[in-house]
């Protein structure tokens, strides 16, 4: 109270005519916002603890609840806005770095929303995906530059290892520890059913999930948590994580409180010890060093699995990608600055990195110019929000997209952005057993499958409209895109024309 007091960000509005005091809200709130006043026989709430996760709103059987943003405001000031001032208060109270979760919420331009897709009219036929075959299958990995034959003229068909996807969408890395066992199980089961891949993140692979190995990408990050021979062997591909879009240039820190039981065993570190991923890989200071790790992993997996290198989209991403394409990696994953996270310093999340749209266009162009585009497949992530974002990404040159925020939304996440508290009311970003059980993987995997199948239908519709019946024919087909409200420079980097041209 006093100088330290900050008025609650949200208000809980309870319609007393509807509230039947069933106390479901109270039982479901891990933040302990709601409580029953026995003397008055009514439900009450302590808004100071509310994070606006909407769990109570969703479960209230009489729709008696809503959460609204508080209108108790400081005096208006275009320069010193409410949030900015309150962050100052918080830091003056705590002396600490501000922490945030999920993706950058600031009003930076979203280039996907400034790009429009073409459709066929009169002079070229569009295709009805309900009547004609439509191919959304893609293969990720190094592709041959030319047709090769043996001495007798027979075709040489041996390809470097490839990942086969039923559509160009995969679930991107979220570690066991940052998300729950049930969230991992949902992702693993959905990926298996869909014929795509999910990614373990850097927390190792829980022993129960080895059975989903052929749809699993395992990650090797700077902390090397949970990396061992069986882990690599269980996977379909191995990803070296150099960076993450939400927090380029810094490492990770999973607090000791979350390193319990299975998480500790899976990460291969003692219970209660902090899991600290260093900012750099301490053995990688150059492309040559990266090449050593790429080939170490290839040796360990007998050259049977593609190696992915994941980097955050930063200023000189094109040059970095060019280096990675020459390092022996099969796939480059680029994560844009809007990518999500289970926890990141607020200043980093909101101010570091570049948009994935620009990074993708720059990288694809650079690799083409240098004649090494076939060396690698490109996977992009960092806020792919819909099927049209996927189609635009493919047309800009991506081979596939990584989705994670969209996936956790399907699992129930309401984007309250307080994963770092470990009290996720939806059972996703938590290790508390009573909260983890709120996510039933039967429901979770079903919802993920629904989401991705819906996107697949939409991708086919959009392709059909353009008169394209194979996703391969869309890749890098920037003529199918037009910019709207973009500057000459932005159009130049995106490599697209303006609408009307």
């Amino acid at each position, binding site marked *: 109270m006093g100088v330290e007091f900050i008025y609650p960000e949200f208000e809980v509005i309870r319609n007393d*005519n*509807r*509230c*039947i*005091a*069933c*106390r*479901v809200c109270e*039982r*479901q709130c891990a933040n302990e916002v709601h409580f029953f006043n026995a003397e008055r*026989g009514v439900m009450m709430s302590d808004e100071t603890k509310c994070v606006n996760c909407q769990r109570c709103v*969703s*479960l209230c*059987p*009489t729709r*008696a609840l809503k959460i609204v943003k508080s209108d108790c405001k400081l005096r208006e000031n275009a320069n010193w806005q409410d949030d900015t001032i309150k962050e100052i208060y918080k830091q003056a109270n705590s002396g600490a770095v501000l922490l945030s979760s999920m993706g950058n919420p600031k009003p930076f331009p979203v280039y996907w929303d400034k790009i429009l897709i073409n459709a066929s009219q009169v002079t070229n036929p569009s295709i009805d995906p309900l009547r004609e075959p439509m191919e959304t299958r893609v293969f990720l990995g190094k592709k041959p530059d030319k047709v090769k034959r043996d001495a007798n003229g027979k075709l040489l068909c041996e390809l470097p290892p490839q990942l086969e996807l039923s559509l160009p969408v995969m679930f991107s890395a979220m570690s066991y520890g940052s998300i729950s066992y049930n969230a991992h199980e949902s992702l693993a089961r959905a990926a298996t059913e869909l014929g795509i891949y999910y990614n373990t993140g850097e927390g190792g692979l829980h022993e129960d999930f080895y059975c989903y190995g052929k749809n699993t990408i395992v990650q090797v990050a700077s902390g090397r948590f949970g990396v061992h021979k069986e882990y690599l062997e269980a996977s379909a591909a191995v990803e070296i994580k150099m960076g993450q879009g939400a927090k380029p240039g810094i490492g990770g820190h999973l607090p000791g409180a979350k390193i319990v039981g299975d998480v500790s065993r899976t990460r291969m570190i003692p219970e209660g010890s902090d899991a600290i991923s260093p900012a750099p890989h301490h053995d990688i200071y150059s492309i040559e060093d990266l090449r050593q790790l790429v080939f170490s992993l290839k040796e360990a997996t007998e050259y049977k699995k593609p190696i992915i290198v994941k980097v955050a989209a930063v200023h000189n991403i094109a040059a970095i990608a060019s280096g990675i394409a020459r390092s022996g990696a099969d796939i480059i994953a680029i994560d844009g600055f809007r990518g999500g996270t289970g926890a990141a310093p607020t200043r980093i999340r909101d101010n570091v990195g570049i948009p994935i749209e620009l990074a993708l266009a720059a990288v694809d162009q650079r690799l083409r110019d240098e004649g090494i585009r076939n060396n690698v497949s490109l996977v992009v992530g960092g806020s792919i929000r819909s099927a049209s974002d996927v189609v635009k990404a493919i047309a800009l040159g991506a081979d596939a997209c990584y989705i994670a925020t969209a996936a956790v939304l399907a699992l129930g996440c309401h984007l309250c952005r307080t994963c770092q508290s470990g009290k996720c009311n939806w059972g996703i970003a938590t290790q508390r057993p*009573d909260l983890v*059980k*709120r996510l*039933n993987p*039967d*429901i979770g995997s079903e919802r993920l499958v629904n989401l991705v199948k819906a996107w697949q239908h939409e991708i086919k519709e959009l392709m059909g409209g353009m008169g394209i019946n194979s996703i391969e024919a869309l890749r890098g087909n920037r003529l199918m895109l037009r910019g709207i409200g973009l500057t000459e420079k932005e159009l130049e980097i995106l490599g697209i024309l303006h609408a009307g041209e």
Partner: protein
Amino acid sequence: MKRVYVNEKWCLGCHLCEYNCAFANSGMQDMATALKGKPIYPRIHVEENDTISYAVSCRHCTDPICVKSCIAGALSQEDGVIRVDPEKCVGCLTCVLVCPYGALAPSESGVMQKCELCLQNSCGEPACVKGCPNRAIVYEER
């Protein structure tokens, strides 16, 4: 025969099933009107302690001991569903005593009521199952 089964693993102890049950059997259109400001008498009950919770309702046994023990002949079995006739029930609570699952509890008036799978009310399917947010209660053939 389809029965209501509970899976303790996914029960959150939210007690929504109790309120959905009480509402479904209230005969009213609106939950707030039906349940606001009064004690509820659901036909399903959540049993819980700090670490475990699960819902308990009539198992609709194939060889129901409650039916056999009813002194008033109020309990009967129709197509596998065990039903109670409140007109005949004298409120002796013998069925409560003999039920091996502790699934039975009397109504507000003191005579027995029990889960009849929502087949007799306007819900038409078990309201506890329909409203369970985590599929901890299912209605299926096993």
